[in-house]
């Protein structure tokens, strides 16, 4: 496997060369060997899977997670801590439906919303009900499970993507229902429901972020333990059989329909539970909380982590939420710049071998930049007169190296488009030409950062996040901790 070292740069499979074009049997047969060969995240993942027992994993996670409130600021605890936990819970629920039972449910977020709205109705000034959580949460969870069961009924008739679209309609219909239809002002319309009570632990209200965090962490741990035993149980094994091959499962006289409905109900129950916690933490719910973007995020969590793996969901949620929050525009731009350049150099270090070639690229980029800068300023002063945004100590260096024209919209756009073309080209080319092309690519990356991304950090976040998703999926198609499954056609 001579290309193994280039994993992050190779868009194709590392073993592309060995992949037979016709007939996959040979490929299937050599599956395990190739697995053993694969390095990197996969190796780490399999090592974790094989060597660290589940209870130890849970313990490590719990021990680490429990310390977060001790060293994080309130805001960081909220966005990194509480929201990661919420995504873990949602991912776990979806994992039952998609990962265990293999049903593509695109209406999942509506169940989450139903739970949140129902909790809000039971614990807010809306109808003056302020039920204790010990009463309201079980009621909400039970009714969400029931709703999931009802939603699951068409799954008996519909296969694969047709199920996906019907459930997607359900999800959309939920948003329209609470936002626009709003019969008798039940759901508050676009204003949503506000002043929702915090969760309480048998009368003790959880008002601070730390208390809320620890409470949700406790719930997450309980759900994880419960799901672990469920997945090892008869039902769990039956679900996986159903996912791998519904036809064979049916032939083995498994109650396929009942299993599907059960999966829907289970996933829904967890979604409803999460809804209660979410509504209580947010203190207000509106239809916008349950629209498609959050569904997309949950799917990303489950698939990135590795479908069907509990550890995978936890890791997926951490990767997705932390990377997304890390790119948030309200973080300091000076730090973001250091991180960005650092990440670019890291990526190069991983992709460009041997070391002298890397040094050549970096040195080349520096020289290239100085020359380009000199030429540009020679043509006209205004080409290099732009201001470095939030430069910090680096401002001077950057302004001497990167071309930042004044009023540079058009230049910035051209640089951005050129960068995309160059990056795509670089991933396809090998050898000396690649090294040569990398020099302007590195320089253009800096130009794009300084002229576009710093100006619009909120937009840059989504661009980088999108690129990250594509990159991770092409590097690890089965997710970070998923077992690579071979689909026999």
């Amino acid at each position, binding site marked *: 496997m001579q290309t193994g070292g280039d994993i992050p740069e190779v868009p194709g499979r590392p073993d592309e060369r060995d992949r037979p074009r016709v007939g996959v049997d040979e490929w299937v047969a050599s599956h395990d060997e190739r697995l053993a060969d694969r390095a990197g995240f996969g190796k780490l993942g399999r090592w974790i899977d094989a060597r660290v027992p589940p209870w130890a994993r849970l313990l490590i996670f719990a021990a680490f997670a429990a310390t977060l409130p001790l060293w994080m600021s309130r805001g960081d605890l909220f966005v990194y801590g509480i929201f990661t936990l919420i995504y873990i819970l949602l991912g776990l629920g979806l994992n039952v439906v998609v990962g265990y039972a293999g049903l593509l449910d695109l209406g999942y977020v509506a169940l989450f919303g139903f739970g949140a709205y129902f909790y809000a109705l039971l614990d807010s000034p809306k109808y003056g009900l302020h039920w204790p959580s010990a009463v309201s949460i079980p009621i909400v969870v039970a009714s969400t499970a029931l709703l999931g069961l009802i939603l699951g009924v068409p799954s008996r008739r519909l296969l694969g993507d047709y199920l996906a679209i019907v459930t997607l309609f359900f999800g959309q219909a939920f948003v329209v229902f609470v936002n626009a239809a709003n019969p008798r002002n039940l759901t508050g319309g676009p204003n949503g429901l506000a002043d929702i009570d915090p969760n309480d632990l048998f009368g003790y209200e959880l008002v601070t972020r730390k208390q809320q965090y620890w409470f949700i962490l406790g719930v997450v741990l309980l759900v994880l333990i419960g799901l672990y035993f469920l997945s090892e149980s008869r039902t769990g094994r039956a679900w996986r059989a159903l996912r791998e091959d519904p036809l064979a499962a049916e032939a083995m006289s498994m109650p396929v329909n009942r299993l599907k409905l059960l999966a829907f109900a289970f996933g829904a129950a967890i979604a409803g539970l999460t809804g209660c916690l979410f509504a209580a933490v*947010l203190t207000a719910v509106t239809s916008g909380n349950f629209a498609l973007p959050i569904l997309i995020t949950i799917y990303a969590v489950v698939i990135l982590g590795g479908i069907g793996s509990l550890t995978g969901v936890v890791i997926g949620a951490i990767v997705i939420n932390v990377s997304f929050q890390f790119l948030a525009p*309200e973080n300091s731009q000076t730090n973001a710049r*250091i991180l960005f350049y650092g990440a670019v150099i*890291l990526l190069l270090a991983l992709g460009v071998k041997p070391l002298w070639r890397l040094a050549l690229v970096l040195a080349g980029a520096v020289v290239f930049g100085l020359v380009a800068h000199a030429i540009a300023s020679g043509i006209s002063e205004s080409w290099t007169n732009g201001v470095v945004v939030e430069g910090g100590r680096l401002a001077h260096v950057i302004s001497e190296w990167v071309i930042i024209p004044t009023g540079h919209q058009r230049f910035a756009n051209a640089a951005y488009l050129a960068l995309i073309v160059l990056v795509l080209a670089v991933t396809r080319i090998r050898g000396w030409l690649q090294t040569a092309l990398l020099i302007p690519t590195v320089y253009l990356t800096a130009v794009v950062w300084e002229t576009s991304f710093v100006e619009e950090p909120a937009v840059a976040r989504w661009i980088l996040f999108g690129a990250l998703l594509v990159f991770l999926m092409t590097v690890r198609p089965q997710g970070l901790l998923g077992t690579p499954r071979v689909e026999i056609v």
Partner: protein
Amino acid sequence: MRKALLPLLSALVALTALVVAATGTAGSSTTTAAQAPTSADTALVRCGRTRTIGVAAPITGAAASIGSQQGRWARYWVTRYNRAHKKTKFRAVVGDTQLPDTAQAIQVAERLASNSSILGVVGPAGSQEVQVTTATFKSAGVAFVSGSATRTSLTTDGTRRGYFFRTVPNDDQQGPRVANYIRGTLRHSRVAIVDAQNSYSTGLSDTVQRLLRARGVNVQRESVNEADTTDFSSLAARIPANTQSVYIPWQLAPKAQLFGQALRTQGKRAILFGSDGLFDPDSFKIPGSFVSFFPIDLRNGIINAYRKGPGRGKSELFGLPSYQAAAVVGEAIDRACKNGTATRAEVRGQVNKTNIPRRRSLLGFGIRFVQRPAGVLGRGDMGTPANFGIYRISANGTYVRVS
């Protein structure tokens, strides 16, 4: 291929180190807030040379077209300030609230609130966002000044007193103004109201509908999802031919233009009446329509400079109140920082004491906040003479103030 594992692991370690280094510097400034969230209110901040204001606006997502205007206008105040002042500077920390997902708004609020260098916040944009972020901002003692949250109860219910302010008149100021004009001046008796299925729009629609019906006007209420709809001809087909005017309290001027074109191509002559969200001479130019908006001077030098600079050729006037909100917060911080240090409580007090005279205000009137709640005005609202004017769109698309 064991070799490959080593660089990968070392890369991971290096990245973690980088991450820790990056957050470490950010974290150190936030520790005070972390240890004692309740005392954030009175925690002394050394003002130093560079002061920080937070900006919360929906920069990406479905509402990006209006949110980015707010972000740009707020930052434009910072740019202008920094250009004019040699000794002190401002920097803006912009958070993306991604309206309509209020969960993002609350995350931004938590982040801004626990960044102890931030003494005041501009935004958030939507009334529902103000509602969900109140608890966070209040517990951290931050003053937050919105340039577009108009729901009346935000100030009149008293729960945000001293923390929340806005540089835009509320629904119960704008509503009567519009209703009076439609009924009193235009003397229309058959009116349709189309709400845009969002918090801002339903609030205004309900107010105007109530007032018009009380004065004997025949009101037909319609509803459309302004953001998701591209084909307004079906909505236009529902408006009867004898309807005299259609009130559209929307926020996306290009969509109002589409609706107007759909009405005209179906041969319907009803006059469109837009709210402040539609004041956009670049996009909404159906001749004969009316729009309520601040009594601004369109030839103002700052607006022109914005148009040539960050606006990329557009005035983006929806963001104007956010510029003013940034001015309110920034000037309050400057006053609180006179002795070199400030607390958030001091800044709140100074925001409340804001007194921007008419000549320095882009909105066309001086800005002072109400001290005694009266009628539809609560603490945090701008006092008289803050109210909207009415504009008419002339045959060549220019906006002419008529009231």
